[in-house]
């Protein structure tokens, strides 16, 4: 006992930060230092603004992913939902544009609605599979992502759907509101709404409860199946929102959008201290976690690290984060 004391004193503060916030603060500081040394352009306000704008899409998907992770599952089909909603909304918009040539916004609204609707179907299928049929989230969402990607490719023949209304890309891809790029503004609203939901609503508390101990939640008169269906549904809806924003940005409906985002969003959450066992996770940290991933990618680009090596590093970071998550869970639960 006595030998351990000096080391404890020295490690006490970092250890407390680690237990409270997870591995993210350490990762962020390390990334800042390393990339600042590697590239003089990295720490410029301009570049950091750039990172903020690029991170919008991952931040949004990670918010949905976080919901599912906290409930004790995970969602591999977020990328597929992005592709499907992109393709379906683009097809609807291009089909309706000649029908209502004078009502561009109606066309956009109906297209977006179609994108959300198809996402809701995917989310409901995930939720029902996991909640009612006890399919493991891994298999359920893996299977669904194959089905969804197949449909997206089938609908388009693998060719991007172009010819979207100009106003769509102009507003949601490149527009500004109150001096902020529209995607950034939408992300800020989504972050605020998600924070409110998780920290201050009954439904949010139940998501934590279901992930913390689903049997106990059931005995506490919580509709655990309903909660699971809700989180998969919400996750898919947020992914669809991301899909629409990306579609506006690239100005076409594409079946290959969101290819690596499932892994990246899980990595962002885990690095941000969301427990893979469920029950633990905070919105504000997840936003930082997604920001961190984009920051690392940006830093590696500036340092001229090849995109192939970047994949290697992101994968390693994820695994490292999970190892730290295990240690942290032990510290939290076993005291």
């Amino acid at each position, binding site marked *: 006992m006595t030998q351990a004391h000096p080391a404890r004193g020295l490690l006490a503060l970092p250890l407390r930060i680690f237990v409270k916030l997870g591995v993210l603060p350490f990762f962020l500081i390390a990334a800042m230092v390393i990339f600042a040394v590697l590239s003089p352009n990295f720490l410029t306000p301009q570049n950091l603004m750039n990172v903020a704008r690029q991170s919008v899409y991952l931040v949004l998907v990670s918010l949905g992913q976080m919901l599912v992770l906290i409930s004790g599952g995970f969602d591999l089909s977020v990328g597929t939902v992005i592709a499907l909603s992109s393709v379906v909304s683009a097809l609807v918009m291009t089909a309706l544009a000649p029908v209502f040539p004078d009502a561009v916004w109606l066309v956009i609204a109906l297209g977006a609605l179609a994108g959300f609707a198809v996402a809701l179907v995917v989310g409901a299928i995930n939720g029902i599979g996991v909640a009612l049929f006890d399919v493991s989230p891994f298999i359920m969402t893996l299977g669904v992502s194959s089905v969804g990607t197949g449909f997206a490719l089938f609908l388009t023949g693998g060719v991007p759907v172009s010819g979207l209304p100009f106003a769509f890309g102009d507003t949601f891809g490149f527009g500004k509101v109150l001096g902020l790029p529209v995607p950034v503004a939408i992300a800020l609203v989504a972050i605020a709404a998600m924070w409110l939901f998780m920290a201050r609503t*009954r439904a949010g508390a139940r998501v934590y*409860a279901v992930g913390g101990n689903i049997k106990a939640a059931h005995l*506490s*008169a919580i509709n655990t199946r309903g909660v699971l269906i809700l989180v998969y549904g919400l996750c898919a809806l947020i992914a669809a929102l991301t899909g629409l924003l990306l579609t506006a940005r690239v100005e076409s409906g594409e079946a290959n959008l969101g290819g690596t985002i499932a892994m990246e969003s899980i990595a962002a959450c885990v690095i941000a201290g969301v427990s893979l066992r469920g029950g633990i996770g905070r919105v504000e940290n997840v936003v930082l976690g997604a920001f961190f991933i984009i920051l690392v990618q940006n830093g590696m680009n500036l340092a001229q690290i090849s995109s192939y090596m970047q994949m290697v590093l992101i994968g390693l970071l994820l695994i490292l984060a999970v190892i730290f998550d295990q240690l942290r869970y032990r510290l939290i639960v076993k005291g």
Partner: protein
Amino acid sequence: MTSPLLETRGLTKAYPGVLALNAVDFTLLPGEVHVLFGENGAGKSTMISLLAGANTPTEGEIRVRGVPVRFASVADAQAQGIYTVFQEFSLIPTMTVAQNMFLGHEPGPGPFLAPGEMRRRAAATLAELGFAIDPGATVARLSRAQQQMVEIAKAMQGALSVLILDEPTASLTDREVDQLFDVVKRLKAEGVGIVYISHRVHEFERIAERVTVLRDGAKIGTAPMAEMSEEALVDMMAGREIRDIYPEIARTPGAVVLEVEGLAAPGVFDASFTLRRGEVLGVAGLVGSGKSRLFRAVMGLAPTLAGKVRFKGQDITRAPTRRVVKAGAWYLSPDRKHEGLILAETPFGNLRMDLMLDGGPVLSLAALRRRAAQIFGHVELPEAYRPRTVAKLSGGNQQKVLFGKAFGHDADLYIFDEPTVGVDMGTRAALYRLIAELAEAGKAVVVISSDLPEVMNLAHRALVLANGRITARLEREELSEDAILRHFFDGADPGAATVAPELQGDLA
């Protein structure tokens, strides 16, 4: 006579092949503690699950204040004021005490929460109950006793009219039990009816008005507690005379099997002892005394820091568990759900691994099954339960499966760590007979137990541990409750008195 709060008529629950509960009539009056008593598997758990709304009856009805009800969920039962504190707690370990207390009925406007109000009301309830627990603490960091208190506090949040307590004192200290009983008495005074399930007969007369005895799913009888004696209750429960559940174990010491010299492990200091064939060595001590860790270190389940362990003349100091087991030592874990059994497997599936330890590389499935059937017959596991998964068996039958594993292959040293934890008396008698049989067959047996009568009645000699050290070595003639208890606090150096909870370091 006041009308009953809760009443069941012909309550029946059938599972394929098993009648878990058979036409039970039961009444609970306001302000009454009504004990449900019976062996594991007698139907108590089924009865509770029906009253709590966690399960639906096959036949019969439940009436609340005279009105027939059907509970589709726990929420339905709670809406009627029926609240159950299950053995497996309904707490979320990652959430705070206050969040847990209001789980499922959080205060706040519309869909929103009111964290401040939640914390204030939680603190008020905890204070009213006299529980010194911080409402902001994470549940995972509380002791089991404190978690129990949070469960009860949680029940107090709704309009409580019936409280069902399932084995509430199983993990509490005497002082905590007193505290719990104070709460029970207060609730009684307020007119709450309490269904109380416990194996601890001596507790009943302190709090109970009436007792209902169940056996094999059927009601044997209901009687006022004042008219019942402990013996009569036990006889009613078991349907046979089992007052003398401890067998006489013949002592024929043979060669030395285990020699432990100056062993040190986390929480264990300088332990030395020897064990001979044909001997039962009892090991007593408080939780955290190191009694379990000492033997976990011997088995290679905890690190050995210093000292020597010799087994049948072989040096097994720091040997991995696999080697120790192959050398002929067998350890029965106190935690059958996490360390002992594969819950999703059948009893045979659990035994298979142990049976395979002895055979050659090619196995005959038929031979394994024959051997398993023989062993399950030996440990008295009822035939009807053998095809089921272990998770669905009662605690007593699970323990029989675990004991079956001990007979799966031939060992020379058997270490039983809390062999009868959460097991009813009928099963205990059977398990004790098995322990006796092993010792009389010339095996060396260790019984580590927190249950003093168990150590006193089974052991030929005993070690007492306190604060990680062996504080006494007692021979059969010297074994008495007083003699053992005297040494529980020996060697307590006030500065070093903080010993970590028992299994923490070992399982991490």
